[in-house]
């Protein structure tokens, strides 16, 4: 199977009227390198269907304070692009089989060399990429290289997206479409916006590609709400916050369980 197929099948396994895939985002190297590996392993046990593995960047302009602080810490811990790739490898060696998407800003990839990056990412066990500052307008090069390697290049949509943008993104995104639920940066939010149901419906009307919702989803109830309208629930900041306490590992595991239950409809 190609990376795109593995992602599609992991999502399809959970697709249903009230169910969806649960996709945690976690920054590699936070709070420390070994802890980030341990936490992702525990989330895999807790019911994660796919992973977004975060690569740190010095200028994360799409991120709110929680993820900014976490990825900054990862950089202080000395995390390099190579280390993030190695973490995926480590997880694969430990028997984790869920699909992995690398979540990275474009400059570290561009600097590494897109072709070499994709090659090394395949070797490390990645299935796709999410690059928040690479819209389809600038993505051709990366897209072609991903197509050859069978990896997904996931593009994003937002509440501000026009009809034309929705058509463009749904026709170009592979693996799934990442629907940003709010105007703004990443961060846990108390409730999901009222317009979300309509927004998801509008995007889904346009495509067979699964639609996963992220930004702001932070508890089991919200995960269940997302599951009733979309194909996947992406959770980042809430898990990062949970990881940042004295009992971080336990807190992450129990939140991941709650989110998985919400998304999986039980």
């Amino acid at each position, binding site marked *: 199977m190609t990376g795109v197929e593995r992602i599609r099948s992991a999502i399809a396994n959970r697709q249903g009227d009230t169910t969806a895939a649960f996709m945690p985002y976690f920054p590699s190297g936070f709070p420390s390198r070994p802890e980030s590996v341990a936490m992702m392993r525990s989330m895999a046990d807790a019911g994660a269907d796919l992973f977004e593995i975060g690569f740190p960047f010095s200028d994360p302009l799409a991120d709110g304070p929680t993820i900014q602080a976490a990825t900054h810490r990862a950089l202080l811990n000395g995390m390099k692009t190579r280390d993030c790739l190695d973490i995926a490898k480590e997880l694969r060696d430990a028997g984790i089989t869920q699909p992995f998407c690398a979540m990275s800003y474009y*400059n570290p990839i561009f600097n590494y060399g897109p072709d070499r990056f994709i090659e090394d990412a395949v070797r490390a066990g990645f299935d796709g990429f999410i690059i928040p500052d690479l819209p389809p307008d*600038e993505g051709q090069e990366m897209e072609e290289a991903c197509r050859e390697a069978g990896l997904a290049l996931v593009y994003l949509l937002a509440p501000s997206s026009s009809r034309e943008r929705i058509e463009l993104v749904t026709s170009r995104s592979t693996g799934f479409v990442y629907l940003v639920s709010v105007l703004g940066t990443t961060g846990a939010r108390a409730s999901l916006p009222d317009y979300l149901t309509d927004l998801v419906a509008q995007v889904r009307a346009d495509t067979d590609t699964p639609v996963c919702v992220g930004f702001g989803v932070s508890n089991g109830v919200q995960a269940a709400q997302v599951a009733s309208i979309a194909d996947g629930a992406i959770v980042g900041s809430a898990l990062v916050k949970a990881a940042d306490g004295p009992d971080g590992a336990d807190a992450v595991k129990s939140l991941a369980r709650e989110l998985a239950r919400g998304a999986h409809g039980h």
Partner: protein
Amino acid sequence: MVDQIDAIFQADDYGVHYPDSRGRFGPYGGKYVPETLIPALEELEDIHATAMQDEDFRTELNSLLETYVGRPTPLTHARRLTEHFGGPEIYLKREDLAHTGAHKINNALGQALMVKRILGKNRVVAETGAGQHGVATATACALLDMECVVYMGSVDMARQAPNVFRMRLLGADVREVSSGSQTLKDAINEAIRDWVTNVPDTHYLLGSALGPHPFPVMVRNLQSVIGREARRQMLDPSTGPGQLPDVVVACVGGGSNAIGMFYPFVMDPGVRLVGVEAGGRGIDSHEHAARFADPKMGRLGVLHGTRSYVLQDEDGQIALTHSISAGLDYASVGPEHALLRDRERAEYFYCTDEQALAGFELLCRQEGIIPALESAHAVGWLPELMSDVSSDDVVLVSLSGRGDKDLDTVMAELSPGH
């Protein structure tokens, strides 16, 4: 009379091709932004095109430039500076005499008017390094009755304190940014985050020829009034030497005063265009902001929505920069400069902190003009030019701003009368 902004649409060969419809200047530029912002950038492209062809808009902007900003700014023959070097005749384009004390007002007022009149948005966010763009934006917002939020790094707030106070007097909400290097780069991150969150009613008024398309071309168009005026003033014997300059020199932070000055001269092949970057404590120290001068750290990259030269470490993390001048202290450079350099149409050199301070003092003593530390980089580089020019040559220097804001910094470095 202010040189009509119509000239923007008398596109020459160069302008017809760059940027292309995707906002590319050859391999540079583009739109590397989160999807959320794409509609706002598309809208901005539209209003930029509309505004430039809208008779009422042009009339209003030109009238404000004349009656409010004080344009055209003078061209000054720097006689004593010329004598000091004993070389070419030196002329100064006096953007320091524009209202608010720097060229930044040309862009701030143009964008604010565009957004207010054509888009109807009433909230503006901006970043600022030296505070000059923040002051210019706060001024435009006061004039046009718009809400203004300015993001500024903590380090810059400390070293440009008078400008923080000026912005607040003008009614702006100045927000301190204490993440990362606490300078211009981080202020831009925070301004973009605000924009992403409030995009339906907010315009991001970017202060240099940087960022995603259409900012580099829009800012260049609004700033090229500097070069159009200077070119006419040089050619007219009643205001200048009656000839084109042989060399044009401007400091380059993001690159707006430089591109505004260069652009109208690009099609004059005999005119050498020279940009001066901030050499900080020297290239080997790695504490500088000379993107073109450091082959190890200054490489092609993507920062803040545009592809250009970026100071970065071997892992693609953006480097911390240093310059004595807050306005030049930035890790990337406007994409059009990267193209002009590739085409060998413009050359780029650097001036260290020490050389800039020498330039600062020199201009104070020889001409009675206290320059901004940014502009002092153009002056401080002149000694290096002297071996390369003859005494019949004419040199035009962009004096992008005045130095009142920098007195604390300079006081800490120099003791008068030494």
